[in-house]
């Protein structure tokens, strides 16, 4: 059973279905990469992940996401924004898959028109912004199952 930092083992997490003890690996095992150009979303996604005990890194666009993988890092989960300068989420997803990256990539966006293209680029999941703990938990369910 997941406890939040204050020791409240309850309420919020179990209400979003996080109560199942077989659901998640011990939190410290899962790592994530946040790819988003917007500072507010970066802060929110970082905090959402921190709150669930998931170590995470934040980069500002698709190119930085590629670079961080080229430097040898790997992540269980990538939260990929779609619209970003330098390299957008669709292109970054394509390139990561072409590089052989098998991480769970969840597209996080507001642009419903491009959703299909985004999925085709190699996403495992897609969530509408704004991201919430319950949306994140539903993504994490998939990380565990495929892992």
């Amino acid at each position, binding site marked *: 059973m997941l406890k*939040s*930092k*204050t020791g*409240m083992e*309850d*309420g*919020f997490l179990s*209400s979003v279905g996080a109560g199942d003890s077989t659901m998640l690996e011990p939190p410290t095992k899962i790592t994530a990469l946040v790819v988003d150009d*917007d*500072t*507010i*979303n970066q*802060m*929110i996604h970082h*905090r*959402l992940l921190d*709150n669930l005990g998931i170590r995470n890194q934040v980069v500002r666009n698709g190119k930085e996401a590629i670079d961080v993988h080229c430097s040898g890092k790997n992540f269980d989960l990538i939260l990929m924004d779609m*619209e970003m300068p330098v390299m957008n989420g669709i292109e970054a997803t394509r390139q990561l898959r072409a590089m052989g990256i098998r991480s769970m990539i969840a597209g996080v966006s*507001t642009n419903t028109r491009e959703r299909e293209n985004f999925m085709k680029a190699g996403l495992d999941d897609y969530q509408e*912004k*704004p991201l*919430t*703990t319950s949306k994140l938990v539903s993504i994490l369910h998939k990380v565990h199952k495929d892992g």
Partner: protein
Amino acid sequence: MDRNHLKRQVDFMKRSFLDQGYLDEQFIQLEELQDDDNPNFVEEIVTLFFNDSARLLQNIEQALVSGPIDFAKLDNYMHQFKGSSSSIGAKRVKDECTRFKEYCTAGNAEGCFRTFVQVKQEHATLRTKLETYFQLARQAGPPGTSRGQVR
């Protein structure tokens, strides 16, 4: 005693913002992310939003008043602004952004001008309301005891 009274006031204020549509569920989601290690998370995010958005609004204003209107550029700016507004739960601001974008898509300059006035107004109103809210919340004490808890 006084603290409890303040806490009730804070809660009441928040409720009224939600009821009147100034804020939506996303704001509550952000509050759920606050804890002892991050007691001012929401205020930090909101402050960041108002700083960022002031800049964006200036850019939009510039784009509106200088020369022939580039609707695509305007739409782009507004998309960003709408996204941030949505991320902090600024419902009324977000709704005005949607309206603005519709006028951009329609290439309706007058509509854009009119709606932009509304956007700025909602933005300013929310800013004032939230400044008061956070001031009160700080006086009321640590967020841990004023958040709704399931008991």
